[in-house]
């Protein structure tokens, strides 16, 4: 049994690394704007198609495209919040939720028009390379994605903790009125934080592409996973998002191992429901 269990655990941790990157953006947006960004999965899909286009049209390796896609997704996220989600949602919980749903519907179907419903993947020279670690064979692409995700998570943490902009974002998250009194403009910070959250997706999309496929429906697959990670770790908590992501990655792999490929996917929605019903504050119980 160990022969099957260990690879499933390691695989779960590796997948969880990329989930962490997806979830960090989501938890940042929740922590600062106090909104549930239902468009998160669809924006990840946009980032994956972006990386796919760069790889197939310009021959740019997805790993080299990380800074470019992070920047592009930052601009898309900033603009989306500034011109669509902010004005449409008007700060009302239901309005914002439905605005992000509307954005998700538009993006998913725009991708369907542009790329058809087919699944696409890319071929990289390292796609089939394996790394030997004791008794384990680990796909190189997943290992690189994990390392990249952890590195970006660290950079994000450093940015939030050490720079003035990071401090301003945290100030607005805690106390928007107080922040406004000391000269920070919350409206600007909101768009900025949303942009940074979406920039994480730009990086995540590039890191996922070599070991995953992309289709217009892929966002719908990731959206509940990302929310499960975030509620498990505690909405708004950075360390929570990383730990939650690893746990969700492991749960998913163990579910597929013990329940089979067709029943296994039930683990993520069940975990999500269980966390919300039993411990809605999550593991790192910040106030909801």
């Amino acid at each position, binding site marked *: 049994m160990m022969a099957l269990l260990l690879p499933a655990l390691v695989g779960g941790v590796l997948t969880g690394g990329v989930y962490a990157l997806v979830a960090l953006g989501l938890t940042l947006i929740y922590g600062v704007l106090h909104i549930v960004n239902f468009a998160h999965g669809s924006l990840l899909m946009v980032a994956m198609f972006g990386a796919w286009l760069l790889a197939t049209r310009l021959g740019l390796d997805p790993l080299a495209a990380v800074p470019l896609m992070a920047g592009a997704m930052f601009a898309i996220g900033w603009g989306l919040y500034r011109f669509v989600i902010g004005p449409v*949602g*008007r700060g009302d919980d239901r309005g914002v939720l*439905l605005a992000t749903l*509307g954005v998700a519907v538009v993006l998913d*179907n*725009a991708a369907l028009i542009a790329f058809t419903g087919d699944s696409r993947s890319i071929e990289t020279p390292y796609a089939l390379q394996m790394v030997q670690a004791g008794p384990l064979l680990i796909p190189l692409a997943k290992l690189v994605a994990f390392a990249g995700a952890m590195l970006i998570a660290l950079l994000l943490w450093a940015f939030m903790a050490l720079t003035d902009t990071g401090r301003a974002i945290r100030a607005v998250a805690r106390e928007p009125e107080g922040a406004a009194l000391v000269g920070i403009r919350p409206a600007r910070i909101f768009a900025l934080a949303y942009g940074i959250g979406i920039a994480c997706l730009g990086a995540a999309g590039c890191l996922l592409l070599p070991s995953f496929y992309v289709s217009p429906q892929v966002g719908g697959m990731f959206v*509940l996973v990302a929310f499960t990670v975030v509620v498990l770790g505690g909405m708004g908590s950075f360390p929570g998002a990383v730990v939650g992501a690893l746990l969700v990655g492991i749960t998913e792999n163990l579910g597929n191992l013990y329940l089979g490929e067709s029943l296994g996917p039930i683990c993520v*929605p069940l975990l999500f*429901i269980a966390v919300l019903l039993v411990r809605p504050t999550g593991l790192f119980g910040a106030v909801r």
Partner: protein
Amino acid sequence: MTGAAARTRALALALAVLTLLPFASHSQFFVNLAMLTAISAALGQAWNIAGGFGGLTSFGHAAFFGLGAYADAILQTRYGLNPWLGLPAAAAFGGGAGWLIGTATFRAGLRGSYFALVTLAFAQAFGVLANSLDITGGGSGILVALHPGAGRFQFTDRRAGYALAVALLALATLAAWRLSVGRFGAHLLAVRENEDAARALGVPAVRVKSAALALSGALTALGGVLYVQSYLYIDPGIAFSAERSVEMLLVAMIGGAGTVLGPLLGALVVHAIADTTRSLITTPGVAPMLYGVVLLLIIGLLPGGVVRIAAVRGDG
């Protein structure tokens, strides 16, 4: 009578006349369109009972639709029950699921966006179950054998299917109208507007919200039965897809959530968009993308929905 009330009454009358129109038509194509629109309106109205009047924004109403559809399909194909019995069975399953999901989530204090996400998770979990269990036929779904005849709840004339869809729409609209005038509806609205204040006045908030979700779930499940009896087929994708949940929400939100006539107008708008685009452009995705755009425009510019246009003009 105020201008707005007169406008609403005229609108209701116009919609009633419009509903009767397809019965005079001999075009199966046109009647089929009318039937699909009526089913959309009925499902939107069912969503509206929880999502509009109760403010319970559900992203997973397909859970109830699929439950009803599978209850009907399984009872007749596996247990040989008369498909008409699928109606009460589906209502019981949909209503029971609504009650259970409501009680569990509202007791845990879930509101707003959290409730939306948890309903989505339930629909997804049901979809996985339908896809992997033997009794649901797994991914290949369930095919209902063709036995035309009123006794077997199968009709070759689409007008009969349309009549059933209109009957469900009428039932759902009657329920919505009762909410807008009755005591239970007043409790529900009080909880929607200010839950803490309603509790303080002695309204049992968890029970009221769960009952609204149960009623909404039961009506949605009946829509699932009509689907199975019209198309004689169901699979996990048709039953539990996120698109179906979103369409119910769209119909209610675009028309006007929390109003009696909103979902009827919403279904007309959504199907007008769908059928016009499909006749002009065949690329898949164009019509649903437009729904998304319309949803954003409505929430941003006309949060009360299309029905507000009639009411606002009436004030002047």
